[in-house]
């Protein structure tokens, strides 16, 4: 027995030594990055999702990109000007090369634009765009079908792809440019962009390795990361543990439950920022006649203590909302604040003839939004105070969306992030009268319908003067606020954490794609 113990001692000593050695050989210029998921494809037009946009910003460049304070920053476009109501002209940066070595030309923009118009996920965003015209070797124009205020917003989605690289037939004789959703394609497994990082190896769901592109055009960038190893770590606790144990340098997202652990550790930094994703409940007026009465809806909004939810459940990791548009968006109306008032809620219920309340069904996902299940439970409890009995059902998102599509409950949870970073997008999807043909109101499970909201939103989408447009959008917010069109809860915050020395603070933004090309590691 003693002999065995000696052996175990030796082994554990060897293990200890080994781990010390592996720690000392860490290269300073390698960033080990852990997200909750890795990009599902290398084809940036295949799916419109945060993961893919993150990849686009790492390996491609857009015409322009958002700054932290929601301004546009020139990237492949050096400058731009509005030529007329329907045309914006972009001056392109010179001397930009793709990873393949091909030079970037206006033809690549044209090719990319045409491909975007084909993509099931992106064509919606580009539906107002008719053409991308090549003016000369350094100039292109984006043409819309009418006056359109969101040309620059949309330009953040134009990441030119290497048209020569993506043209022709692959080994199996398929067109290299084709977008395939349910299977492999050339573009989903090969990549050539102009961005700061090349993809050098990738194993789906395990890791992606990026290396800095030697010929990257942005020599002014202070970014000094040579290599990025991106690993998906699904489990929140494991992801934090990986950071705290030094196995990775940078993680996102950080769940509110883990904040304490991260903040109390002096080797790592936590960076949080208000996000733009709104979490709401919708009250189905078609299923429940009670919800047709604005007073009942008002009562429900008044009954829900959303600042309390932010404080207790989200641990401060959210901003309580009274409207859809977050601060910084054109539609943000400062006057529309959260309005928890239980006494008023009870009064409204009495006035509308439901002093004894009624029973409703409620559904919410349990793995889609931060603490979604707990929030739903809290809301159900709060509604019981005004005698509304809630039959709550929560389920994984995979099962939730089909239920949502069926409008299967009286009250349903929905969170929304505006793809265009513009208020109108919220209204189009969540608040306009549902219409199968135009596709408006696709996520308006409450069937809220207001002519003013519908018309003003559409008008705002043709108004190119930002001031006038802001007034319109804010008026829409006001209308919905007065109608209690939906239950606003909060905007989720964003959180990242990195070991000290990895300066993530300057490169992260509310859009949740850190500009890793500019990341500096000390």
């Amino acid at each position, binding site marked *: 027995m003693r002999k065995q113990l000696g052996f175990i001692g030796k082994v554990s000593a060897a293990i200890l030594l080994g781990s010390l050695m592996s720690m000392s050989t860490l290269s300073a210029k390698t960033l080990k990055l852990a997200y909750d998921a890795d990009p*599902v494809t290398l084809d940036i037009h295949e*799916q419109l999702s945060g993961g893919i946009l993150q990849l686009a910003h790492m390996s491609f460049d857009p015409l322009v990109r958002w700054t932290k304070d929601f301004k546009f920053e020139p990237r492949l476009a050096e400058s731009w000007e509005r030529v007329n109501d329907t045309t914006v002209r972009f001056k392109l940066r010179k001397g930009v090369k793709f990873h393949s070595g091909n030079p970037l030309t206006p033809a690549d923009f044209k090719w990319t634009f045409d491909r975007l118009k084909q993509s*099931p996920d992106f064509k919606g965003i580009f539906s107002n765009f008719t053409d991308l015209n090549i003016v000369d070797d350094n100039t292109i124009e984006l043409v819309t079908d009418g006056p359109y205020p969101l040309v620059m917003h949309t330009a953040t989605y134009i990441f030119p792809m290497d048209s020569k690289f993506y043209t022709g037939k692959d080994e199996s004789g398929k067109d290299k440019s084709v977008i395939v959703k349910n299977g492999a394609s050339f573009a989903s497994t090969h990549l050539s962009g102009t961005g700061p990082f090349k993809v050098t190896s990738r194993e789906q769901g395990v890791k992606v390795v990026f290396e800095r592109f030697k010929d990257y055009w942005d020599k002014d960038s202070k970014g000094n990361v040579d290599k990025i190893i991106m*690993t998906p770590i699904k489990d929140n606790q494991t992801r934090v*543990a990986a950071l705290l144990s030094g196995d990775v340098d940078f993680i996102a997202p950080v769940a509110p439950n883990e904040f304490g652990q991260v903040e109390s550790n002096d080797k790592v930094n936590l960076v949080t920022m208000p996000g733009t994703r709104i979490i709401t409940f919708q009250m189905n007026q078609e299923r429940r006649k009670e919800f047709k009465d604005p007073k009942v809806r008002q009562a429900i909004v008044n009954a829900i203590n959303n600042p309390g939810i932010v404080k207790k459940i989200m641990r401060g990791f959210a901003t309580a909302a009274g409207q859809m548009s977050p601060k910084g968006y054109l539609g943000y109306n400062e006057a529309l604040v959260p309005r928890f008032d239980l006494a008023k809620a009870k009064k409204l219920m009495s006035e509308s003839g439901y002093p004894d309340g009624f029973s409703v069904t409620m559904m919410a996902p349990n793995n889609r939004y931060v603490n979604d299940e707990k929030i739903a439970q809290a809301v159900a409890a709060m509604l019981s105070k005004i005698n509304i009995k809630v039959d709550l059902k929560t389920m994984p998102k995979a*099962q939730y969306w089909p239920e949502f599509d069926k409008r299967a409950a009286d009250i349903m949870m929905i969170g929304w992030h505006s793809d265009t970073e513009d208020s109108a997008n919220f209204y189009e999807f969540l608040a306009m009268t549902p219409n199968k043909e135009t596709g408006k109101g*696709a996520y308006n499970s409450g069937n809220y319908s207001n002519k003013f909201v519908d018309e003003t939103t559409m008008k705002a989408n043709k108004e190119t003067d930002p001031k006038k447009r802001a007034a319109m959008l804010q008026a829409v917010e006001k209308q919905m606020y007065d109608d209690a069109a939906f239950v606003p809860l909060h905007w989720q915050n964003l959180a990242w954490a990195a070991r000290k020395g990895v300066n993530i603070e300057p490169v992260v933004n509310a859009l949740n794609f850190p500009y890793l090309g500019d990341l500096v590691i000390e």
Partner: protein
Amino acid sequence: MLQFLFKRLLQAAIVMLIISLLSFSIKDKLGDPLREMTGMSVSTAEREMLRKKMGLNDPFLVQYGRFVKKALHGDLGTSYFHKLPTMTVILKKLPATLELTFAATLIIIFTSIPLGVMAAIKPNHWFSKLIMAFSIIGISIPVFVTALALIYVFSVKLGWMPSFGRGETVHLFGYWDTNFLSKDGIMHIIMPAIALSSIMVPLFIRLVRAEMLEELSSEYVKFARAKGLSRTKVYFKHALKNTMLPVITVGGVQIGIMVAYTILTESVFQWPGMGFMFLEAVNRSDIPLIVAYIMFVGFLFVLVNTLVDLLYGIINPTVNLLGKGQ
């Protein structure tokens, strides 16, 4: 022998057919894959068109018929997420899971057998009582709690162990990258293997102890002692080998169950194996992969049972699977 294998093969085929039918019949309850494949703002019409193109709107029997027809040609569908044939994906993830299971099995063998035997031959010793107390507690601690506790103590607090992933692997052949040939790989596999074995070790300790106690009260053990053999020889030669027979039978089934437990362990440790892949597939409504995985696990169960029976036949001379002699 050939007949035995042929029977098992047939059994596997039937098992897989039934599993495929069952999993196919519930697949619509597993969520809408189109939701996972498209962004939120994609229109319903657009989604519907894709659905049609993928044949997801066809009647159940048409879809199942198509699946079986393809399956007979060795094609179990293409994963939506991985965009590769499901079998390719599974085989790619298989080595990681098998290595993890193997490592856990080693831990189980080298802890539960000595401890179980100890508890059986010295039932009143304080250490035996400690073992039994531990086994009762251990059996009731969920795997993921053990896993998180290990990570917290050994990775976060002490910094001795890597917290996730497979680490550095050495390529063997085909898809097979092994953890066992590099120090980093071994370091990475230790904690997941301990976590995975944590629920099985107490179970096996109790099993080994119970079987050993039974063997110790048997006539041949008494006879062996009456022959004047030393206790060591009686315990470790005569009783232990007989103890192993039921342990192997139960163990085979348990190892199959362990493959299921890898789902938890792998997701906590971000171990890139089949279990984690399956969990992700469920999260993403990757139905072809879910169906293929369940079928594959069914096959694995039959395979493990077959191997166990063969092993049993080798150890136990009274079982004649090989059909020789008589």
